[in-house]
């Protein structure tokens, strides 16, 4: 057993507004530079739909994530070291600009500077790649709100698996939103695939980063990530990805996309996990079992042995307390309402999702006393569809999660209207009344400090590293003053 700490997030899709405030927050901070225009470290997809980049979940096309060899060993789907070396200069599984989009801007200046003519001036699109005029044919959220219709819907890899069982007419329309960032996986394929040793997972908080100095631009990380959350900066020639806003996180602030989530769907906290059993968890024979194993290695933060082991590994009390206080652990492990995105990719992602409820399907006539709220089997979003996304096809797990949400609503309605609480309802959720009460608070009225429990980074531990690696203030270099990091002189080692 080796207990380590890691930040883990839960996104409640039942509340997601699909507004993309998260997307803009991230773009403003990190990816509005040359070469990053097409990068969406955070994006939101309307599903069913092909997603961004197009059909990213289709690993026949992209070969992302891990596969299990016949003898039960994990192997990167893009192949071993030799296979990858052979593809150094041509990787057929990398997404191309046609899977993303050609970034554009407009000739805005024309509106002001156009000379007088017989026509109204217009700002027309120009490519940010070529600088030439272009027609816009694709974007990072091209299929928002079911734009593109049946054609786009049928490109959804999770729909394809359902083999034409989905109706795409007006009456049977359904949609949900899927916000996505880097999953900061426990078993990150991108890290494993990097030939330059540039990618790493931070020991103290699990954030997966790509060292911009070491990166040689091989792009295996891009190919290996099954979520396509690593991007290649075509100006610097380095890969970049979501950094979970570590400069904010280290100072106790929440990542920008979490901060800016006006749907209040996001939760972030510390969990403790057993690093020794990551491989075991990821290599379950039956993909449906991976979730259970994943949950198993995420440890109870109140368990004394866990705490003891964690401390031995240098985890500080505030991280342990944070792990105890965060609702994330309860949502995934106690209430079991959150699920990982595509566990079958075997990377053990650390952003989990509460699946969404949806309106009653068309043409079902139910008596309101029997079905005041739609029952799980009568919801518009097909259970199988959600299962393809979150449980490797296990519909029971989806149903259980949705039943808990509906059960909570029935329970709270009875309570609010001063009616007798129906014990059967509570039983159906397999939760206690106390759990329901707490779940209600977490899902509905949680304040900022309840949703996010963020210990600050222990920089004091890194001070020795600073001493060794950073230049002192105001060094007179060849080109004048270089590097002015602010430090207190008392912290010098001598």
């Amino acid at each position, binding site marked *: 057993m080796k207990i380590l700490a890691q930040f883990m997030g839960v996104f409640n899709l*039942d509340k997601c*507004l699909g*507004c*993309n*405030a998260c*997307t803009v*927050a991230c773009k*403003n901070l990190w990816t509005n530079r040359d070469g990053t225009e097409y990068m969406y470290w955070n994006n939101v997809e309307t599903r069913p739909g092909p997603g961004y980049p197009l059909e990213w979940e289709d690993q026949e096309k992209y070969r992302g994530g891990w596969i299990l060899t016949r003898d039960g060993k994990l192997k990167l789907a893009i192949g071993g070291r030799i296979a990858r070396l052979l593809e150094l200069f041509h990787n057929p599984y990398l997404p191309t600009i046609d899977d993303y989009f050609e970034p*554009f*801007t*407009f000739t805005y*200046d024309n509106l002001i500077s*156009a000379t*007088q003519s*017989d026509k*109204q*001036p*217009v*700002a*027309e*699109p120009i490519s940010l790649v070529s600088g030439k005029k272009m027609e*816009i044919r694709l*974007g990072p*959220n*091209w299929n928002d*709100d*079911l*734009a593109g*219709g*049946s054609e*786009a819907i049928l490109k959804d890899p999770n729909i394809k698996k359902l083999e034409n069982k989905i109706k795409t007419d*007006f009456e049977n329309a359904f*949609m*949900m939103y899927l916000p996505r960032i880097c999953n900061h996986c426990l*078993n*990150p394929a991108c*890290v494993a695939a990097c030939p330059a040793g540039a990618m790493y*997972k*931070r020991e103290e908080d699990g954030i997966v*980063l790509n*060292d*911009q100095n070491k990166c040689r631009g091989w792009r295996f990380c891009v190919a290996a990530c099954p979520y396509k959350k690593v991007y290649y900066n075509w100006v610097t020639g380095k890969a970049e990805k979501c950094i979970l806003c570590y*400069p*904010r996180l280290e100072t106790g602030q929440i990542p920008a996309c979490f901060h*800016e989530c*006006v*749907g*209040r769907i996001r939760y972030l906290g510390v969990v403790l996990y057993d690093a020794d059993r*990551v491989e075991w968890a990821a290599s379950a024979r039956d993909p449906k079992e991976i979730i259970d194993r994943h949950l198993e290695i995420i440890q109870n933060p109140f368990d004394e042995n866990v705490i003891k082991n964690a401390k031995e590994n240098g985890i500080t009390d505030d991280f342990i307390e944070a792990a105890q206080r965060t609702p994330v652990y309860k949502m995934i492990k106690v209430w079991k309402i959150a699920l990982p995105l595509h566990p079958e990719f075997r990377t053990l992602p650390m952003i989990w999702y509460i699946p969404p409820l949806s*309106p*009653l399907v068309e043409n079902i006539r139910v008596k*309101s006393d029997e079905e*005041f709220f739609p029952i799980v089997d009568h919801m518009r979003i097909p259970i199988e569809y959600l299962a393809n996304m979150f449980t490797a096809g296990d519909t029971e797990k989806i149903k259980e999660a949705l039943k808990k949400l509906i059960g909570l*609503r029935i329970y*709270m*309605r009875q309570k609010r209207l001063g009616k007798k609480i129906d014990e059967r309802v509570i039983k159906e959720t397999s939760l206690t009344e106390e759990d329901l009460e707490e779940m209600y608070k977490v*899902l*509905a009225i*949680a304040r900022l400090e309840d949703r996010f429990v963020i210990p600050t980074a222990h920089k004091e531990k890194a001070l020795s590293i600073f001493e060794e*690696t950073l230049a002192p203030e105001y060094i007179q270099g060849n080109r004048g003053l270089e590097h002015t990091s602010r430090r207190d002189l008392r912290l010098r080692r001598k």
Partner: protein
Amino acid sequence: MTWQKFEKGGRDWEQFYRNRWQYDKVVRSTHGVNCTGSCSWMIYVKDGIIITEMQALDYPIINPEIPPYEPRGCPRGASFSWYEYSPHRIKYPYVRRALLELWREELQRIKDPVKAWENIVENPEKSMQYKKARGKGGFVRASWEEVYELISAALIYTIKKYGPDRIFGFTPIPAMSMVSYSAGTRFLSLIGGVVMSFYDWYADLPIASPQVWGEQTDVPESADWYNSTYIIDWGTNIPQTRTPDAHFYTEVRYRGTKIVAIAPDYAEYVKFADLWIHPKPGTDGALALAMAHVIAKEFHVDREVEYFKNYIKKYTDAPFLVILEEEDGRLVPGRYLRASDIASVDKGDWKLVVFDLNSNSFSIPNGSIGFRWSNDKKWNLELKDSITGKDIEPALTFLGIHDKVVSVSFPRFDEKGYIEREVPVKVIKTTKGKNVYITTVFDLLLANLGVKREGLKGYPENYDDEVPYTPAWQEKITGVPRELVIQVAREFAQNAEETKGKSLVLVGAGTNHWFHSDLIYRAIITILMLIGAIGVNGGGWAHYVGQEKVRPIEGWNTIAFARDWVPATRWQSTGLWVYMHTDQWRYDEVLMDKLAVGKTMYTHPADYVRLSVEKGWQPLYPQFNTNPLHVGNSVDEVINKLEKKDISFAVADIDNPINFPRILFVWRSNLLFSSGKGSEYFLKHLLGTENSVENRDEVAKNYVKNIRWRDPAPEGKLDLLIDLNFRMDSTALYSDIVLPAATWYEKYDISSTDMHTFVHPFTPAIDPPWEAKSDWKIFVNLAKKFSEMASKYFDRKVTDVVYVPLLHDTADEIAYPMLTDPEAQVLMEEKLTPGKNMGKIILVERDYSKVYEMMITLGPLVKEKKLMYFGIENNYSKEYEELKEFLGSLDDRPLIDEDKKVAEAILRLSGSTNGEVSVREYKYLEDKTGLDFRDLSEGIEEIKITFNDIIAQPRRVIDSPIESGIVKGNRTYSAFTFNVEYYVPWRTLSGRQHFYLDHILIREEGEQLPVYKPPLEIVKTTNTDGVLIARYLTPHGKWQIHSTFMDNLRMLTLFRGGPVIWINEDDAKSIGVKDNDWVEVFNENGIIVTRAVVSNRIPRGTVIMYHAQERTIYVKESKNGKMSGSHNAVTRVHIKPTWLIGGYAQFSFALNYYGPVGTQRDTIVSIRRLE
């Protein structure tokens, strides 16, 4: 695992992203955009550059049981910083070369700026030269000094030659930035210019609200949704358009609240619902009336729910008595029985009557509007007889105590005709000796709805009977299965019964932007009144379109309309102005036979406009066919001239050049294309430049009786269009002068909204870059130049004769009792009496050389007079002295030369931000009503919110009687709780909420009770191969707030990179259109060239073009060579005469309160693929 790396050392590269995150400064501001958001944001500055914004998270907690407001915001707001340094930021003053060259030439030649302007505009060749160039590029930089001089010259020339009422200003929504709003309106008020409305013009005004409640709009803050236990979202796309508030909508579900979404398309708000109902677009009224039918039957007749019954008795007009009148051999619901019909009492025409079961006789209860304007402390909702003071028990129905049963005719409009239904009546003899049938509003309501009662004939037998307004009847119209309607109506009412009214309907543009929006809304409100949900936390109606709520309203109003200096401002309902001045009236084919089943006064709506304007119901400027500075020095003199017809109202000859609007300021707005319904008519008639109007059908010519017809219709009426803007939007592109305005991150201002109860500041993160200036500074500087120049051109003070309409919340609202019909038909009576049979004439003395001084100091009327808001008088001499101390003074008057000082003054002069003011307001209202509000006013005196307070943290407002809701005691604000809990009357004829309306024009159109009228069907194109004809809907978009953000690269990238129209995929297939293909969307009004989004989310036969997509970004020319218009190129304004009523209790004019609404949903378009 060997490949899993935990690096301890060598991570110094991580500084890369840390450095990027670091910043130098952060300030609090917000977005001054009409989204109702009013979110508090922190703006980050690094190296003197605005780099980003993130939401403030420090909202005070209202109540621990309710989710907090953090983090308010949306992707649009989050992208604002992109505009700061965008390539189409307006950096300098610009003038179109065609005009600037003429100006420079003339000025050089004759050295007199006013004369120079005259030489340009009065020379048809020269003026058309620059008017025709509008919108076609050619902007050149000018200096501030040069544009101030040009504008001042134009103003002075126009004032001297035509009069100040030819100068107009359009700016919307003060709540989103009160100081910037006031900058221009204060200037216009001081010079006698005209301030135009917006809320009604946008069709956001739910005109049913003034009709039912005498209230512009009042709604719950979004946190109050959390108190609801059953929500029907009926046409407001909460996640998409109320993004910052949407979490209350999703979260309340976990509290056990059921959500039903009623939407024609699978809109975003449907995603969160338990049930989706999709009626055909525009048929919501039919659906609502069927629900009302079910509720009235099951909860009022089959079984009487005590709570519901008591509610409608106390708080609605249900027990009031109505006379049945004979019309062409039919009995129809007529006017209310008045006190003057049965007795002789003061203001008896304005007091209504009930039948009291306690005394078994008629009673004149407290609370009618007559009591509001007599000082006898009886303007309250206590169920007492106003004469004896005894408790009364009003009869809701005459059934059982009736003298007789008679058959009454109720109009229907699905098929034109009448339904005959029996109603119980009593017969009485009026003071005039006439025998009349009377019945109760409730009896009429049940009859209209078709709710059968024992012994009455003419009613449907059951829900399956296909007559108005049964569930089966609606099924034919809406397409919604009857069982669904019955189920939802039953659940909704049941929920209200169990919770005493916590059933909530969220309504918005989807139901309100229709021509018959008033009827749709009244039908929905009828449901809510029947179940006692209005004025209850967690219940009622919640209408969210337009940020109408200026919380610190008294202070804002004082400064914005210069009430500290002048007694009257010229206010204009924009819908009416546009209808007349862009000549859309000439093309209006919605004649009265389309609106009414019986005979009507006139055939064409424009004739009602003249009636209304001359009666002083609605304003239309210019007022007379002459300069108001030259009509006289006394009211008598003016009346004399009118009576002798020496002068006449401009409305009668609207296309005469003497009556043209001449100068238009636009700021904080994109008037021409965002809200400009019939935008191509603006281009044609107002601006005189290229347009795509194909309409040759000037219908009015054959029908209009009282407006002079001139051929051909004038083009290019406007001499000067000035736009203050921070970006080159479509209106800026078509303006003559564009001035660089500071953005929301560069100035001081205040924002508030109806969605929450906080007051937010704007503060500058940087000073305005380039040559930009705040709106306040621009108008102050203009005032300075104008005053300097005016002192040369005006040798003395002038007397401006201002004609104003009869105003709501003043004693003038009881001017026209309308007891006899013919009175309305007399257009110009021989003897005119202002305030009696016409509007009011107010003489305003103006010293144009002093405008600057007046602009920058708070005038003496604040301390010398009592100012009245919402009928509540107050004197502010104490605050006046405080402000002198606080802000500094000039000539012993508080100085408001800077935007921050204006903000401070607004806060100090308003009850909601100054407890002392509020306490005085409560006292005044106690005196007026005889009621006791001490538990609300106690302890608030000490609270004074200053501008620095709101910079530190969002502050919640204080209660004041100006507001109809209550926040004291950690309560969430909900409309009308003050009325319900404290028995304060609504500002209506009866003092109650109105099921019934009895004005003659309402009766003409058969709208006494809510009825169903189908959407207008104006189809002028034929269905040919490859052309789809579809209903054209323009809801609010996802990637924009109106036109703002629509051109923002962040937002453009997140969807399709420019304007699009949504089409059902089968419809698209039928005309060979694939996703992202270019299409032409057109009708007689204009043409749009845009790309198609093909989707299964949209129903067949309907297309959706999200509102206000700019014509500046990625649009093309159509095949006919015309540039694509905006979404409004295919719309047009139509007028319903009932919107023109005035001087009649709640039907009285106030800016943005009552007037023609610019609806646009009733449009039909043709679509074809652009080859």
